[in-house]
């Protein structure tokens, strides 16, 4: 499937890697603050940590990364995992099931 090219330039300084496309999904307060449940993001961030800082600036997320967990391709991941092209990323705000 061919994706439309993003008009915006990838963020500079976030690792300097080749730009890649990742699918980001949002839940709970991050979904509300982002104003959408998911988006495709073109980024130069090298890790989920870099990507979160980039998106935090764009969407004015109030939660610092230290309060979140991250999932890559639907499983828990480390913040410093190298971010590959085409992965899905979910930033997981503090949860309270049960």
């Amino acid at each position, binding site marked *: 499937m061919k994706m439309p090219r993003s008009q915006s330039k990838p963020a500079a300084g976030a690792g300097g890697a080749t730009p890649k496309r990742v699918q980001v*999904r949002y*839940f*709970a*307060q991050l*979904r509300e603050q982002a104003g959408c449940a998911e988006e495709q993001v073109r980024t130069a961030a090298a890790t989920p940590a870099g990507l979160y800082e980039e998106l935090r600036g764009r969407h004015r997320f109030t939660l610092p990364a230290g309060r979140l*967990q991250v*999932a890559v391709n*639907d*499983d*828990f991941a480390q913040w410093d995992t190298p971010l590959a092209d085409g992965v899905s990323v*979910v930033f*997981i*705000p*503090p*949860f*309270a*099931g*049960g």
Partner: protein
Amino acid sequence: MFRLSSVPLDPGALQRELVEPRAGGCVSFEGRVRSRNEGREVRGLEYEAYGELAEKEGARILAEAREKFAIRSARCVHRVGRLQIGEIAVWAGVTAEHRAAAFDACRYIIDELKKRVPIWKKEHYASGATEWIQPPAAGQNHPGPGRKA
């Protein structure tokens, strides 16, 4: 088996699924929506889950319970969507040949679920305000052991 449900839970039906001749003990837990939290009057709740990961992590917790305790079977179901006061938000059920393992495993499942399964809860208050509930900060063993002083 761990699953999410967008329709009300039927604890009788869930428990009957666990019945088998060698199960001498069955322990189940129902977590229900209560009308007060942290001194505020609650009108209802909304649960939102990261389905793919919630089901994976829930299945891992049940597998751990089967490894750690001498149980026959274990199940857990968590609601998503809007819930009213008194509705069952989560149900966990365990069978074992003897009661101690059933009690311990049921407690393990519900405690681990709260810590590890990505399900968010938004409280709707009588005042009209809403809030995403955050777990208590580490070290604050809230709500603590349920014994009275």
